[in-house]
């Protein structure tokens, strides 16, 4: 059988990292990435890229922990290498603070991040409105650098990258054997998944280079995440909202909430407002599907619905999607050899 032709649809965080994984696992396949949007216009570009997991209610915890561990380990190695600054990966320490005691005193990911421990009374004095907290060190993936770095690695591996709007996965059935659906919130337009909903997030990116620590309110709604060239202040979680327009009232509200966590932000400059739609689902849709019409078939692997947790699990789900692509390729080779008989 000729080398399988695989298309990854979507060039955001999930599309690019999944394509990279596939190109590493199956170097002989002919791999293309097709996407309407590229960095800096993907959902991931809006996010801070902090490795602090979101919990998916529909996925077993041990699976989420495995995905987080794989992602953390992968990025840890990059952060420790000469490529760290180009890839936008860096360590950052900080605090998660709680006004009311958290549901899980020790979250499932506490032994994967570095140095996780409860905050001391002296440390909590900096947060007079909060009663307890956790201190730890984790990783941050700055975008665009990380997405640009992934794309560079893909091209070096001979992967073709094309700007193309795919309105229906079926339109690819003549050109490709396997299609990997990494369209994120775009999967809504491909149709058929009532479980996928946008959760709108507005953030501010500001210049405040003296802020060296992350601060996250344990309720998840307010955070200060220092990156390479800007600090991301957030945020909102508006279920079902499709609006990509920044809201000025929300901007002021985010700024006020973040300033109460970190008063020095009063002096921040260069405020840029961004909006992204988290592709939310109770669990990531990671499964195979066979599309068939009139005797023709298209093998599909879905990998979308990462919601607020994309960065934290992306390498783990990329490996799982790659495994599913492997099953598709084996199935194709199986039916191909049957056809020869």
């Amino acid at each position, binding site marked *: 059988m000729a080398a399988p032709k695989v298309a990854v649809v979507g060039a955001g965080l999930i599309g690019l990292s999944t394509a990279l994984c596939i190109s590493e696992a199956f170097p002989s396949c002919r791999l293309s990435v097709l996407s309407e949007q590229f960095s800096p216009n993907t959902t991931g570009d809006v996010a801070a890229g902090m490795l602090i997991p979101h919990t998916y209610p529909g996925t077993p915890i041990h699976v989420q922990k495995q995905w987080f561990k794989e992602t953390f380990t992968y990025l840890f190695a990059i952060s420790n*290498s*000469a490529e760290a600054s180009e890839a*936008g990966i860096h360590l950052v320490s900080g605090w998660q603070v709680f006004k009311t005691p958290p549901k899980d005193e020790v979250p499932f990911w506490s032994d994967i991040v570095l140095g996780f421990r409860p905050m001391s009374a002296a*440390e909590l004095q900096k947060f007079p409105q909060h009663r307890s907290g956790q201190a730890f*060190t984790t990783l941050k993936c700055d975008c665009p650098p990380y997405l640009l770095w992934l794309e560079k690695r893909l091209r070096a591996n001979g992967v073709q990258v094309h700007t193309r709007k795919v309105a229906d996965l079926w339109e690819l059935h003549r050109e490709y054997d396997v299609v990997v659906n990494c369209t994120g919130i775009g999967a809504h337009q491909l149709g058929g998944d009532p479980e996928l909903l946008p959760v709108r997030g507005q953030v501010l990116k500001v210049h405040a280079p003296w802020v*060296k*620590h992350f601060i996250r309110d344990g309720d998840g709604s307010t955070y200060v995440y220092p990156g390479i060239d800007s600090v991301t202040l957030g945020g909102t979680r508006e279920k079902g909202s499709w609006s990509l327009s920044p809201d000025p009232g929300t901007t002021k509200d985010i700024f006020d909430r973040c300033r109460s966590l970190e008063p020095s932000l009063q*002096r921040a400059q260069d405020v840029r407002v961004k909006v992204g739609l988290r592709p939310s689902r109770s669990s990531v849709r990671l499964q195979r599907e066979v599309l068939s019409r009139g005797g023709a078939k298209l093998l599909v692997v879905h990998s979308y619905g990462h919601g607020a947790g994309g960065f934290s699990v992306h390498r783990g789900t990329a490996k799982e999607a790659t495994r599913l692509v492997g099953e598709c390729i084996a199935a194709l080779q199986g039916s191909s050899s049957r056809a020869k008989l």
Partner: protein
Amino acid sequence: MRVAVIGAGVIGLSTALCVHERFHPLVPCLQLEVYADRFTPHTTSDGAAGLWQPYLSDHGELRETLWNKETFDHLLGYLGSPDAKEMGLFPISGYNLFTRPVPDPSWKNIVLGFRNLTPKELELFPGYSYGWFNTALMLECRSYLPWLTNRLAQRGVKFFHKKVGSFQEMFAQGVDVVINCTGVRAGELQPDPALQPARGQVLKVRAPWVKHFIITHDMDSGIYNSPYVIPGSELTVLGGIFQQGNWNEENSAQDHKTIWEKCCKLLPALQKAKIVEEWSGLRPARPRVRLERETLRHGHSQAEVIHNYGHGGFGITIHWGCAMAAASFAAASRCLVFGLLPVLSLPLARWLNFLRRGLAQPA
């Protein structure tokens, strides 16, 4: 009542501020002056990265540990305030790395969140098998010294850009108390064989992805002779040079190479960082800080000098505690007491309390 501070680095300016804050309300005729041949950004303090961290051991100098703590707590109090950015003050966390286990430092309970490094964290630093993590403070003097200067100017303190030749020169002009904050060149005013330069050199690079300080220690080659990386608000400082007895303030190509190679080995990502500045300075090294009052003859009368120098590589770390101690010595100074005579109408208890605070400090 004239008090002259000689020196306008972090020690001189903070001591001047402390003296003025403490005495001006009680001695309205107090005239405070600052004399220096170098002002910010040309002082030793300006070149330092600005990390609050004492040496590993206080060598039994308990009062230095106390002054370090007083400084940390004083700065911590400013953290949430509107002044913090203008002061160049912000919290920072990071790593101290060793090749073998060492005792905990005297300052472990002064900083926040002090703990040992986990095995996973040590994987980041091949060649180092032991270490600490803690949250401390940065105080960048390129911002802090102008901030102190503004506060002093607002209070009417006068600045004189000149090199003072001798203490006698000050007394002859009518100065009653001299506060000697001349740092590494104190020996020019009064010989002090215990005071030596400890030359340092640093590279300042653009590496905004570095969010932690990393200080390595080689217990055999001594403090700061091992690479360190300290991220500031704009640039990251790379260093690791401590040369006792070297007075050369010129940058050395050999030291540049040493710093660059060792820091890039410690943090491979630094290879991509652009070098923006290079600077050499002389730490005013002394076995212990000289903080004491000395009475000198001046003609038929006596004049007072309060010495406050020899802070080595921990001047920023210890500055406020020393400033307060120096101001207390000034309080006990006879001249200042005479300056208080017009204030005798104050309630006796308050007056005695004021004196008691000053006399309580050991000479």
